[in-house]
């Protein structure tokens, strides 16, 4: 794991600089971040508060009636520690109203609906408060496709997308996110008792090592097996990365014209900024 270790001072400087730069370039001063009480959104809020000042960060709590009460308590702890602005929107009425018409919907559909409900609330408050939506998806989740497309994966600016989960924890400790948040079991909190690691079937420590070599160091599956990694595990991880590629791209566009968006019409995202 040694190589996954971050030089936290420098990474902190790079990420706060990134938030400040990308937010201001887009003509904004504020960000809006959904606070789940977990380590990712807590770290994002800490970095944003440092980059923009606490008064420019809005933490939005969006509990559902089955959410673990600890989640809201931890989100409130982040708000209090940082002195950022906050508000809470209960998503139970909207989500329950929708599923009243289809009561047999499974966990996955309900979880996705909640994630997308929260997204619409964040973007509404983005418009109301004049702040960009700050993304909180980390590199592990993005690579595994362990997130809801147009739900928690949606944002304007994401400071954490190139940090593996274990690196998020390192940096969170470094910037003094409360220990109780850093050390608890990660959970999407979409249903009672859910934990990421139980649902994924492996620990973040394990998968981050494989992803780091596969992605950052361009190992082939065979190279990892030769290094002593379990072949079935490595293949399963590779399969997840490959299978979720569509989630990391814009929808595929049928090419008709001489210049198609994102194909041969290529401008930087910071075009004109």
């Amino acid at each position: 794991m040694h190589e996954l270790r971050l030089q936290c001072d420098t990474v902190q400087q790079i990420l706060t600089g990134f938030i400040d730069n990308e937010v201001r370039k887009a003509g904004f001063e504020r960000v809006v971040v959904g606070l789940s009480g977990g380590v990712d959104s807590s770290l994002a809020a800490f970095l944003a508060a440092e980059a923009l000042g606490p008064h420019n960060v809005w933490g939005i709590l969006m509990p559902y009636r089955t959410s673990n009460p600890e989640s809201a308590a931890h989100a409130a702890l982040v708000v209090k520690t940082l002195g950022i602005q906050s508000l809470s929107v209960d998503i139970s009425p909207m989500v329950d109203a929708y599923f009243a018409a289809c009561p047999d919907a499974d966990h996955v559909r309900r979880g996705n609906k909640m994630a997308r409900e929260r997204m619409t609330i964040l973007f509404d408050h983005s418009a109301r408060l004049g702040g960009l939506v700050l993304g909180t998806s980390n590199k592990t989740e993005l690579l595994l496709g362990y997130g809801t497309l147009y739900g928690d994966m949606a944002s304007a600016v994401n400071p954490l997308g190139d940090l593996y989960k274990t690196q998020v924890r390192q940096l969170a400790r470094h910037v003094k996110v409360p220990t109780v948040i850093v050390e608890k079991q990660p959970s999407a909190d979409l249903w009672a008792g859910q934990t990421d690691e139980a649902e994924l079937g492996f620990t973040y420590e394990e998968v981050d090592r494989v992803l780091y070599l596969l992605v950052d160091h361009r190992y082939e599956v065979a190279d990892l097996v030769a290094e002593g990694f379990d072949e079935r595990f490595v293949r399963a991880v590779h399969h997840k990365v490959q299978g979720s590629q569509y989630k990391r791209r814009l929808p595929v566009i049928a090419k008709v014209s001489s210049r198609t968006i994102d194909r041969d019409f290529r401008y930087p995202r910071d075009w004109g900024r």
Partner: protein
Amino acid sequence: MRRFRLAVAQIAPFLGDVEKNLALHEKMAREAISQSVNLLVFPELSLTGYFLKDQVPSVALKAVAPALEPLRSLSHRLAMVVGFVEEGPGHLFYNAAAYLEGGEIRHIHRKVYLPTYGIFDEQRYLAAGGRIRAFDTALGRAAILICEDLWHPATAGIAAWDGAEILLCPSASPGRGTGRDGPFQNARTWEQVIRAYGDLFTCFVVFANRVGYEDGACFWGGSEVVGPTGDSLAKARYLEEELLVVEVEAGALRRARVANPLLRDERLELTLRELRRIIRSREQEPTGAGGEP
């Protein structure tokens, strides 16, 4: 003993906005003039920003463009190396850097090695230069090599064998790989490369890297002036804008070349002979040792 002041404008150019960047250049130049700087080096593509993509033709300038007049005029007061997209004959676009001195452009280097791998895509948008030349300046003989050019050691060799005493290296290096010593893995490589070149080619090296963010990529700064024994004479901060100024003494170059007469002993004929042999052998087996399947 003759002394002169070298400076690096470690700036964060505005992406695709030549007008704003010209104003930034003038501001930095005036600041440098107030500190009696003789030569001010700006980073790669300092007038345009780096990840331009399809904007390349929109921001390109011909070397004679009136837009460059304010900088030409300022170059009566200090010499400058300025990075821009040059529109050459046949509407080819080059990643170029100009040496301005005494009110005119004395030399233009067009980047020879256009990286097209990893996060880079330069060959898609730009034409490659075909020359590496040293040229005479008021401060001595110099050569310009742009960023990736430096990662091909032959370029620095050619510049030195052509008489360069000062290697001018405008760069736009985005940080990659979290580093243990510097901010990024590639920053450490850069620091080793420029110090080794100073040492091996017994010349001054001025590494002018930019800072700022483009599309989430972060340019790491850390601009540096290296002396002809490989010592770091001055180094700018990582990640932050800075005008790095350092006074150097021309005599250091003579002493380094007396102590280490590496350039005197260089065997160019031998190098050329071996290069011809290597090229011939590659021509004979164009598909590599295994041949075609």
